[in-house]
């Protein structure tokens, strides 16, 4: 069995990123699109931590903390928008919200 290297973590992170991207691009439910964005941000964090470990430097972990902060802010505002949207349009499906579409 091969020992686990940085490349393993990068591969896992890339796979998680792709899963999140597919979720954002294909799902219609906005709640699940927001969850997919969380998956993408976690993939980024995995990448940062893997390099932080490989370089024996704490900077990657600091960046991961800032990414988590952004994820929290994004989730709060996104879910606020979702509630406002549901109050006005009575739907949570992304392709039914086409007010700006010509």
């Amino acid at each position, binding site marked *: 069995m091969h020992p686990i290297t940085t490349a393993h973590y990068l591969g896992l992170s890339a796979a998680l990123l792709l899963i999140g991207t597919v979720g954002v691009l294909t*799902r219609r439910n906005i709640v699940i699109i927001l969850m997919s964005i969380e998956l993408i941000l976690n993939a980024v964090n995995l990448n940062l931590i893997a390099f932080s470990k490989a370089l024996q430097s704490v900077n990657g972990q600091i960046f991961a903390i800032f990414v988590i902060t952004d994820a929290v802010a994004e989730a709060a505002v996104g879910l606020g928008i979702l509630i406002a949207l549901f109050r006005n349009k009575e739907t949570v499906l992304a392709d039914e919200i086409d007010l700006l579409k010509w």
Partner: protein
Amino acid sequence: MLMDTILFYLFAALVLGGGILTITRRNAVHSAIFLILSLLGVAGLYLLQSAEFLFAVQIVLYVGGIMVLFLFVIMLVNLDQAAKEKQFNRQWTVALACAGLVGAEIFYFLAKGAGAFQLAKGTAEANTGMGNTERLADALFSQYLLPFEIASLLLLVAVVGSVVMAKKRI
């Protein structure tokens, strides 16, 4: 070493399986539960890479904070109607093809350049005898003090913004 390998594959399976189930389930509550599973797997990987502070932050903030927020909103918003409808939009084939293409590209270069990740290691930082949390705090409150303060500003804006968004009448 062998234990590390087994744990890595275990957590990787947890992360990827949870992720795939998150984006394929019809019921949003099930999606949220599987997302929790995936985030716990990520937390385990943090622990494997000796990022203990982030392990705790991941569990407290993501599993304890963000996911509860998600579940609250799922309960507030009526999702029964959405669960009955089609779950994937019209362009899902194109989206899958594009994601597959990007994935093939990433994995091709990753396989080709895997040897390049043998990076220089063992700087003085690692041998100071301080714990992970101590080192993080040291860097966060000295070198990264300004970004830290700006992050607090961002959170303030997010709090005010989400209240304005969700409130019926200001």
